[in-house]
């Protein structure tokens, strides 16, 4: 299991939003498939932590990934366009953005909390402790 905890993310007052999403930007999916369980303000969460509102559990995302590189050398390297007229489809291993709606979990936190941390527990079949979840940025988006 890999555990990752974010830096603090600013949270607007409860009256300012109706929906809240966590956006994991640039998620890599070239490795083993994995599942990630997300907690708010619970940096000590581990595999044994109940996935309940009391533990500030926010939900899960699963990533169906490629597993390995099965082609020839360079097959899984993401190439740059070779020309401005390169209209080939994007490489299938381009990172993607994964969204988890956390409105209920965020609303359950005390109003005026100001900021949260996000803890992710990520599991793959190899029981890796590192490199399971690889992504560029995490953003908390709220919508009025």
């Amino acid at each position, binding site marked *: *299991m890999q555990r990752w905890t974010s830096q603090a993310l600013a949270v607007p007052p409860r009256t300012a939003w109706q929906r809240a999403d966590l956006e994991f930007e640039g*998620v890599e*999916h070239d490795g*083993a*498939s*994995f*599942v990630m*369980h997300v907690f708010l303000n619970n940096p000590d969460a581990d*595999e044994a932590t109940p996935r309940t509102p009391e533990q500030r559990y926010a939900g*899960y*995302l*699963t*990533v*169906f*990934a*490629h*597993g*390995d590189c*099965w*082609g020839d050398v360079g097959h899984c390297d993401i190439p740059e366009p070779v020309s401005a007229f390169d209209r080939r*489809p994007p490489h*299938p291993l381009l990172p*993607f*953005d*994964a*969204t988890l709606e956390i409105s209920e979990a965020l609303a359950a936190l005390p109003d005026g909390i100001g900021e949260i941390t996000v803890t992710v*527990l990520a*599991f*793959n*079949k190899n*029981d890796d402790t590192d490199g399971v979840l690889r992504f560029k940025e995490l953003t908390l988006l709220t919508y009025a």
Partner: protein
Amino acid sequence: MTITARPAPNAAPVRLKVRKNIDSLSAQELSDFRRAVKQSMALNDKRGFEYFAGWHGVPLGWCQHHDPLFLPWHRAYLYWLELALQSEVPGVTLPWWDWSKSAGIPSAYSSAQADGADNVLAKAPINVLNATRKSGWPTETSRALGEVPNTPAPPYQQEWANAMQATTYADFSQRIWTVHDTLHVWVGGTMAQVDWAAYDPVFFAHHANVDRAWRIWQAAHPGANPPANILDQSLQTDPAMQVHQTLDVHQLGYEYAGTQATVAGSA
């Protein structure tokens, strides 16, 4: 809803083919479907199962995931495969596995034996068409239920309901691809690897249910289409199809039904 559609504006209406729940197929329907898959697997050319399986991952890698093309690409994929199966056994359709209600893999896909032989839907050889086998390539499909710890198991009733509550295509697409990913990962084995998943026949029962979800959602949200800037985009299939051509299942000649009962008329 309707059971007929016009294949072209001035053509006479024809009856739509109905995709059914795998658990509701008659013994004959299931036997016919298995026969179509088995015959298709015996074809080592562009009519065969291995060719279609190769669209998704090794060797062609045409599939679309985690973006707005996910649903249109897979709808086109199933459409072309279903036609190929119908060329083998007329009238067969792709059954769906309703993982929003059912726990476990349907027995039609998990029983080791069927019709007095190995069940072609339970395990399949992986013979990549027109490719030299490389070290590490699997030789047959495998499943390893729950191999990724803490992956939720079906039924995914809540996840299905959450997807159906989406009010925009973007939200629906993302919610349904998320539960789609979960099912793949829960089944494990080759089903949990994008590059090999489609060699397992259960892949298509899974995706028929994803496609059914989209169909149901579309019926409840008429006009809620993918973004305008992708409607004319070509989907990598053989032949190619544009996104807008995937939006109406009646124009693709099929519909989903929970039940279907027909009796003779008075003529």
